[in-house]
Structure formats: C-alpha cells, structure tokens
C-alpha cells in the first residue's frame, strides 16, 4: 500500500475519523448524506484544515504534529465537485485547459471520450447540467493528476453515458496507474468500478471491501 490516510477532525456535528490505506486503484466511497464523503475528499485535496497524516506516493502531504502541510496548489491533484464549477467567462476548451499547457492531442482525446467534442467553443451557460458535469470531469483528467478526487461525478448523467464514463475512468486508471477516489450514491458505481469500496457512517469508514 503506497498511500495512507490517518486523520481526525471535528467538522460541526461531524467527527471525521478515518484511518485507511490504499494502492493505485479505483475506490468508491458510499454512505448517507452527511456521512463525511465529501469532507474526506476535501481533506485529501487540502481544502479543509485537518489533523493527522496524509501520505500519497510515499510523500507526506500532511503531518499536523510536525506542522507539515503541502499546499493544494502543489499537490498535483484534480477535484470534481458535485456541481460542475465552470468559469462562465471562459469557453469550454479554456475551462478544461485552465492553468495547464495546451496539449491538443490530449484535449481532443479527453473531449471525445467525455462526449463534449462538439461543445469545445461554447460557453458554460449554453450547456446542460449533464454536459457541464462532463466538462468538469474532462478538466480534472486533462491535468494528468497524481490523485483524482471525484464527488458524485456522474449524478447528472443518463445511464448510457454513465456506462461510457465508467469505462473511460477505468482505462485512465489502468494507463496512468493513479488512485481515483469517487464519492457516490449509485450502487452501480461501487459494483462496476470499485477495486476498493469504503462505506462511510458518521465520519468513519465502517466497511472496507476489496475486490482487486
């Protein structure tokens, strides 16, 4: 296991208390609303202050006792929010490239896999919520991150498109050998995608199923 998390932090009424190890694999996190799925992803992204230890690729991202906090900007992660979070003044292509280098071949490949090739020169307000969500997924993958964090990434998609996107994610994970964490309410995501399945309740992981 090359990645590990051991964090404990009170967030309002929720006590997030997670100790877990994982490899470069797809992990699906399920659980009720308010169980702490999104908060866990946000902690790993460095978007929440938390105490404990986070090690990714054997590098320390967080060690609160030693006061080590690697800033989000240099973690080389990608995050997909449950809302698409697109910048309305940029067209779709610029939204996807945001802050990165222009790699036409990679952009074309990802846009085609996400089914948004025809939307590249439109602006976000012209998109449906499903299309916007696929753009956000494309933006995350375009970064070639070392850790991909997805919060309900398929919630606005039709079943047929969900299938296609799951296959795309599996291919990406196999090609790039990166850990992908997906918070999802859809049992199908856990069934099809999960090499590890974490079930969260009240801020803790109560069941870990490994199928890998």
């Amino acid at each position, binding site marked *: 296991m090359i990645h590990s998390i051991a964090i404990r932090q009170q967030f309002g009424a929720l006590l997030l208390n997670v100790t877990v190890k994982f490899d470069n694999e797809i992990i699906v996190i399920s659980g009720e609303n308010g169980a702490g799925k999104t908060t866990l992803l946000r902690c790993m992204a460095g978007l929440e202050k938390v105490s404990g230890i986070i090690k990714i690729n054997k590098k320390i991202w967080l060690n609160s006792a030693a006061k080590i906090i690697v800033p989000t900007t240099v973690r080389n992660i990608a995050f997909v929010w449950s809302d698409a979070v697109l*910048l309305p003044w940029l067209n779709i292509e610029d939204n996807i490239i*945001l*802050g990165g280098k222009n790699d036409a071949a990679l952009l074309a490949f990802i846009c085609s896999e996400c089914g948004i090739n025809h939307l590249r020169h439109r602006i976000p307000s012209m998109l449906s919520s499903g299309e916007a969500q696929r753009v956000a997924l494309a933006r995350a993958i375009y970064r070639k991150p070392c850790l991909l964090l997805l919060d309900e990434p398929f919630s606005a998609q039709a079943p047929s498109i969900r299938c296609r996107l799951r296959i795309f994610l599996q291919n990406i994970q196999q090609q790039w050998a990166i850990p992908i964490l997906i918070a999802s309410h859809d049992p199908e995501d856990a069934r099809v995608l999960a090499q590890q399945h974490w079930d969260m309740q009240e801020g803790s992981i109560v069941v870990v199923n490994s199928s890998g």
Partner: protein
Amino acid sequence: MIDALWITLQLALITTVILLFIGAPLAYTLTFKTFFGRTVLEVLVALPLVLPPTVLGYYILLIIQPSAMVGSMWQVMFNQSLAFSFSGMVVASVFYSLPFSVQPMQQAFRAIPVVWLELAKVQGLTFKETCLHIIFPASKSGILVAVALVFAHTMGEFGVVLMVGGSIPGETKVASIALFEFVEMQQGDDAWLLALILLGISFVMLSIVYSINKKPLLTGNMDQ
C-alpha cells in the same frame, strides 16, 4: 474656465489610475487576509467618507508642507514644494477618493464564490494566474464601478483640494473652486455653464455605474 476644467480632468484621470493600482491590492488584502490591525485599516480607508474634507485636507497639508518629513523629502528630490502644487493635490485626491475605489472592489471580491478560489488551488494556479483568470474577470463590474466613482468623485472635490492646492489659477484651481469664485464675483453666465458641465459629467459617470450595477448603489451587490 477651460484651464480649471483641464486641471480637474487631469487630476481625476491621474487619481483614477493611481487608485486602481492602490485600491485593488488593498481591497484584496481587506477581503481575503486576516491580520492584526485589519479593522483599523478598514476604518482608515473609510474615514474620508465621513470626515469633513477640510479636516482631511488640513492633515494632508501638515504632512506635505516643506517643514514636515514627507514634504521636505519631496522638496529635496524634485526641487519644488508639494504643498500648493498639482502633485500635492494628487496626493490629497488619492486619500480622499480611496474608499470609492476600495469599497466597490471589496464588495466584488467578497461576491466571488469560494469554490472558484478552491478551483484555482486545485488547478495549481499561481497567485498571479488566480488574479488574471479568476479574481479580475469575476469582479470586472466592481472594478469598473470603482473607476467610475473615483473619477466622478475627484471631479467634484472642493474642500480638500482648496486646502492642499490653494486655488492657484492655471495650476491648482479646479472646476469646483472656479465655480465658487464665479459665484462670488457674480459672473452668473460662467457659473451657470460650468455648473452644467460638472452636472453633465457626474450624471454620465453615475449612469455608467448604475448600468453596470443594475441595482441601487448603496444597498445592492456591486457584482451582480
């Protein structure tokens, strides 16, 4: 009259440009940073809104007169007095219009959704890239409002520029002071024309502000 209008226009333009560069970082600091003395800084920025302009002018005059440190340094560097000069009026105008620059920008920065700033972090954007790609485009309307308000406010200054500039014809006599003098000397036609020009400029600038805002100036959200 043309002289006074030309001086006023130059003063307003220079003040607007300077306050764009001072106001933006100040508004950014007051919006996103927490530090000791933040409230004091916020109060100092807002003070010109409530302070009688002559009081502000008096203090600025104390600072820039040749016997004070700032004034004497200026005298040594440029071989001219800062008090009762155009440059002195620029200094005074910058202080006087500071809240009109900072506050609309602060409101605009505050209205930026937190998730957009988180996106900047996740995407690995540097501070410069975050400003360029997210903060400035998201607060474009607030920045434009600040520019229009500072320009219009500087055009209408009276007390501060009178204290600091001293109404020297062709050098520091601005339009509002010229108007006062026209009235004092009973030059009714000149007073009428100058007042109409100033009214027109203020009307146009405020129309710009309201069309950007599309909401009441003091109660609305500057970024909508």
